[in-house]
């Protein structure tokens, strides 16, 4: 199990459950870890510093008593087409489809670093647009249909929608088109400007990295 780039087939034994933690693409059967996908095996050593780390794996096990290396099987490199289900905590890129005073409906395009093929629908509720002055948020001053938005998944939501939030500085509108139809650039934390007409429009702007 030393090599970190071997191929696993569904049902292939990866190791005992006492030595590894199950990551995505694996499952436990009779105290052993098996692959559940056709893909490449990754073994990631636990981060030295315990605490809220940036999650690399998709499944966070409950606070593990002893930190064990996590073994996962990933489709990346095996197939162009791979689908992931947006999960709580994932950062996603999405396109605004329609807006109402209470929420913005978006289509999730990219989840993490994976381009999604299926159409997963998301919802940004008015109270999740930004972290401060929530009561003054207006959806139409934050998003417009067609905008590309970076957001975080905060709940699996109801049967149809994932609930998303843009209540952080680096989250919000990345690309916006003006009413005149031109690509705009951000001028401050709440405005985009049309370079040709000079008209600025309100948006929940994502802080550029």
């Amino acid at each position, binding site marked *: 199990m030393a090599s970190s780039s071997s191929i696993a087939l*569904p049902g292939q034994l990866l190791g005992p459950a006492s030595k590894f933690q199950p990551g995505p693409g694996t499952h436990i059967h009779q105290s052993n870890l*098996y692959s559940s*996908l056709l893909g490449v095996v990754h073994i990631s050593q636990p981060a030295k510093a315990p605490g809220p780390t940036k999650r690399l794996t998709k499944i966070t096990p409950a606070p593990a008593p002893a930190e064990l290396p996590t073994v996962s099987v990933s489709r990346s490199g095996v197939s162009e*087409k791979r689908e992931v*289900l947006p999960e709580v905590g994932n950062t996603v890129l999405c396109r605004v489809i329609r807006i109402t005073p209470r929420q913005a409906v978006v289509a999730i395009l990219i989840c993490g670093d994976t381009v999604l*093929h*299926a159409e997963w629908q998301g919802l940004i509720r008015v109270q999740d647009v930004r972290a401060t002055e929530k009561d003054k948020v207006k959806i139409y001053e934050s998003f417009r249909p067609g905008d590309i938005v970076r957001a975080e998944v905060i709940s699996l939501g109801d049967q149809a929608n994932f609930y998303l939030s843009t209540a952080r500085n680096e989250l919000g509108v990345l690309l916006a088109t003006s009413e005149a139809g031109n690509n705009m650039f951000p001028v401050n934390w709440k405005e985009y400007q049309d370079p040709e007409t000079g008209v600025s429009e309100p948006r929940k702007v994502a802080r550029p990295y």
Partner: protein
Amino acid sequence: MTDRRRINGPVGATIPLVFEDVEDYEQVATKAARSRAPNAVRKMYLKTGVTPSASGSAYLEIETSGKGGVSGLKLSCTVYGPRSLPRSSPFSPHIILSTHVKYAPFATKQRRGYLRDPAERDLGSHLEAALRGAIIADRWPKSGVDIIVSIIEGDQDRETSKTQGDEAWDIMNALSGCITVASAALADAGIDCVDTVAGGVAALVRDTADSSPSIVVDPIPSEHEKILASCCVAYLPTRNEVTNLWYKGDLPASDMELYTKLVEKGIQASTNANRVLLECLGETVN
């Protein structure tokens, strides 16, 4: 039940013509005997990723019995999903599996219509049971996946007359192929499975009217005088578990051993198919 959306072929059953070629007459009249060993399955060809637009796909071909004019089994499977459920459907903590098995209209001697008939629906149910045991459904909440298997050629001997052979037995072979090909397509689509499931068929056959019955794997109905019983098994090799068992026939109930042996042989046939499946999946990766 007429299908208005397509231009349909002639209504009613068509009976294919049988040409009595003088030279081949003897050959047609005498039944082709099974040339393989009782334990040998036919060669099969499996390839994944044949349909670029689908999330996962696979193609399976099983060789013909070597005689001219006999079609083998040709199956194509496409998997769409995981994808979000339609807005009207209720919340589901699991992935919703839907399976469709359809014979192409020209796949069998008797022309099939475009709408699925009860036998095809039944095959779909069997396939669903076989796959449902294999997938890890709770990995994909609020998602659905569609598995569509098209039977392009239905493993039938054109030259046998209607009275010889019985479609009821052919359907077992078709199901076992459907399971194997769908399993490959699921792996190609990246849907979590506990193991690779594959199908296998074994049958208790009688070759001549007065010979004693014997068990063969991967039977071709037209090669035998009579099939007494047949079973199709969907088997997970690493877990040693059966996800679907379909038996039909007529066995004395007192003889449990015969039944056990039949299932054993079915599992053996399934293991053979699984070897091909694993090899094929390995090739996909490299």
